[in-house]
């Protein structure tokens, strides 16, 4: 058990190294002189030379990488070019809105999609199933920003029920915090729900055909117990796996959603950094997101034995 867990944890190291190499090369191999890019349009030749020396760009590539990695490991992600502040601080300031949005979206998607998927599988082929599946195709194919603007027009502008955009910190006003999250959560959560509902349905459909489901019914168990305990627990490994890998989908959506709703989170920071070609910030954001993705999926892998006793490390 422990040896597997340790091996699985160690296996994240090469993945993170590859991410680090790509992120490192992003700047060094981008067209043009990185020092000139960093120095900006109005820089003099001397400025550029100074920056080059500062960043160690005049040294061999490998040496640069080792130096850069060393800084990363000591928590130094470099400084933003435009704001001249440490990248790590910028990211930390923006974490709350993005984290809040991700958590509410996950919760929304699971609460919506898993019951829908179970229901569709239970009544496979019926109009209930067909309706749920049609809705999921729709939710999956309409772009997040369209859903977002639609919700804003409907619930904020027409009905005036919810704020149009913005974000309020949980510590400032919990109620406003939640009100501001409702629409972005729905806009972002629908795509993710669609994916999750389809996987839930497919896995449940398979599980409901298993012999042990017939046994459960032959014991006189009521359908909710058959579905939610006997079937869903068996279907949980693929569903949880999808929750983890679907995180990639969520991350892309976060960037769009934060723009549509003017939420000052990591997604917005990313867009700003890209527009300003603020390379250190871009690098920092990519590293943080990649690390989150890797660690969430690691946590899910390590949770499998809790879901299915046949999985032994």
């Amino acid at each position, binding site marked *: 058990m422990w040896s597997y867990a340790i091996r699985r944890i160690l296996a994240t190291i090469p993945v993170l190294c590859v991410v680090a190499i790509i992120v490192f090369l992003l700047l060094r191999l981008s067209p043009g002189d990185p020092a000139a890019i960093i120095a900006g349009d109005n820089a003099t030749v001397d400025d550029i030379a100074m920056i080059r020396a500062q960043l160690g760009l005049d040294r061999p590539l490998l040496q640069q990488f080792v130096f850069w990695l060393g800084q990363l490991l000591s928590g130094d992600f470099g400084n933003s070019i435009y704001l001249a502040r440490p990248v790590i601080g910028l990211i930390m300031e923006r974490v709350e809105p993005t984290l809040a949005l991700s958590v509410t979206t996950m919760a929304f998607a699971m609460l919506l999609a898993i019951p829908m998927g179970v229901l569709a599988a239970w009544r496979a082929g019926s109009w209930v199933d067909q309706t749920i599946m049609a809705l999921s195709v729709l939710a999956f194919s309409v772009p997040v920003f369209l859903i977002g603007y639609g919700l804003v027009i409907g619930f904020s502008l027409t009905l005036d029920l919810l704020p149009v955009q913005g974000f309020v910190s949980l510590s400032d006003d919990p109620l406003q915090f939640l009100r501001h999250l409702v629409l972005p959560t729905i806009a972002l959560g629908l795509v993710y729900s669609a994916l999750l509902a389809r996987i839930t349905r497919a896995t449940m459909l398979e599980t409901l055909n298993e012999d042990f489901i017939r046994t459960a019914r*032959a*014991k*006189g168990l*009521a359908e909710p117990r058959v579905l939610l305990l006997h079937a869903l627990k068996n279907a949980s490994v693929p569903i949880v796996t999808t929750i983890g890998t679907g995180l990639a989908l969520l991350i892309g959506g976060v960037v769009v959603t934060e723009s549509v709703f003017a939420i000052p989170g990591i997604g917005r920071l990313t867009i700003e950094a890209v527009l300003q070609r603020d390379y250190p910030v871009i690098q920092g954001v990519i590293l943080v997101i990649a690390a989150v993705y890797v660690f969430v999926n690691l946590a899910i892998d390590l949770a499998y034995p809790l879901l299915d006793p046949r999985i032994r490390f």
Partner: protein
Amino acid sequence: MAFDAAEAPVLVVDGLRTEFATGEGPPSVAVHDLSFTVRRGETLCIVGESGCGKSLTALSILRLLPRPYGRIGAGRVLLDGQDLAQISDAEMRAVRGRAISMIFQEPMSSLNPVLTIGRQIAETVMVHEQLDWSACMGRALEMLRQVRIPEPERRLQEYPHQLSGGMRQRVMIAMALVCRPRVLLADEPTTALDVTIQAQILDLVRDLQQETGTAVILITHDLGVVAEMAERVLVMYAGNKVEEGSVTEIFDAPTHPYTRGLMAAMPHLGGGQGHRGRLNEIPGVVPALHARPPGCSFAPRCPLVLDKCRVEAPPLLGVGGTHAAACWVTAGNA
């Protein structure tokens, strides 16, 4: 416990017809006009080749036919006089697992892999007897002892994959009998097990039956099992009852050509260990549901076939005692 032939039967199946809806056309009939009874403490064996409708008969009794196409088209299933085909779903759930239980062929796949053995047995008690959970687990433990599982306390906490096939089938039996059902439906409970384990499981079923007086309907391919276990035998072919009688009547004077074919296919009767007759040596196969011939469904494979057989299905005709067979040639006087 010897059963009392004068006592009213526990379960009466009367004119059961099980069918599958097939889109536009008429439904295909998988079990046709089947009637039989079982008494307290009695063992009825249902025999026949693969695809004869044995499992569907058992599933019809419990109303667990494959959804959404399977259904009971006609007939009654009377448990102590109450027609199970008519009661509500909730009433039916109260019957399943408590008054009538079922065990299945595949002990590997019939237990839930992600729940402990103890939990799976105890929840049956919980849904039927409204005891608290520790009392239910207590009953589960007691039941594991009764089915002679070694170290029952430990097994309670284990998962199905940690047990051998024979142990799993014991767990299935424990689960089926924990609420002391009036009827046990055992659908080929030993087919997937090796021979020595088979004998142990059958002994166990018989012993528990003697203690509890449960009526057993044992479905099997295997005439060796029939000879060991049955008081009465029902031979099915292509959804029809073709012969019925006490175990001695059937073995001493098999009447329907199909039954005779099954007997002939057996290597040796009552030969104890080793060879168990597999019913696969009658030339031809059971016709598929949608391709059942008019007249006697066994006619295409029958060595004694007459022209009449291909036109008109023979009724079940008494041939003495409790023995009856559906054949124009051997039971009638065509």
